[in-house]
């Protein structure tokens, strides 16, 4: 059983479209994250949710809207996609303020 699963694994879309990436964890963790790995390979945090509440919101354009319907799910919706949004997006989960959290396998988003 996959601990943190993201769908889709690959996403190719045109500029201006709206898309969503889904994330689910079956580890019973109470905190979930979205990280972005850009073309320079840096992993940067975008959002963190604890028990469905937004805890961390880095300086991310408001075209990005996370939604956590319950503590096992954290989805990422992106409006009006731009070329610069092309990246690999990783979901992760952990316990509260613990750092050894578990990553999903990533979603490679390509905007053309």
């Amino acid at each position, binding site marked *: 059983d996959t601990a*943190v699963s993201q769908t889709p694994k690959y996403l190719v879309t045109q500029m201006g479209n709206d898309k969503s990436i889904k994330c689910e964890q079956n580890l019973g963790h109470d*905190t979930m*994250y979205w990280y972005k790995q850009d073309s*320079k*390979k*840096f*992993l*940067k*945090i975008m959002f*963190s949710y*604890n028990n469905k509440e937004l*805890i*961390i919101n880095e300086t991310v354009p408001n075209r990005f809207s996370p939604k956590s319907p319950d503590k096992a799910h954290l989805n990422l919706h992106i409006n009006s996609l731009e070329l610069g949004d092309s990246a690999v997006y*990783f979901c*992760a989960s*952990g316990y*509260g*303020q*613990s*750092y*050894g*959290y*578990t*990553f*999903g*396998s*990533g979603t490679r988003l390509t905007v053309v």
Partner: protein
Amino acid sequence: DQQVKQNSPSLSVQEGRISILNCDYTNSMFDYFLWYKKYPAEGPTFLISISSIKDKNEDGRFTVFLNKSAKHLSLHIVPSQPGDSAVYFCAASKGIADSWGKLQFGAGTQVVVTP
């Protein structure tokens, strides 16, 4: 502003030898450090961590050393095995009570273990 730096993008090492990966940081508020390992098409997996109150932490073949005065940490893998071929990310945080698991990552070092 990149506060965690891994200046070696790649490292090649023979099987059985020691791999030494280096990481430097600029923010003196960081007090918890981690290493993650990543295979292609997979997410990073947690490897080992160290708190700033220690200067060494060991877990099997993996040892992390922290030099706070130099703002430097290193990961030693002894002996290196073919399965260790992966990208290794260094990460740091400003305090477990404060940052809700927010990590700052380096750019990674690609390790290739050759027979």
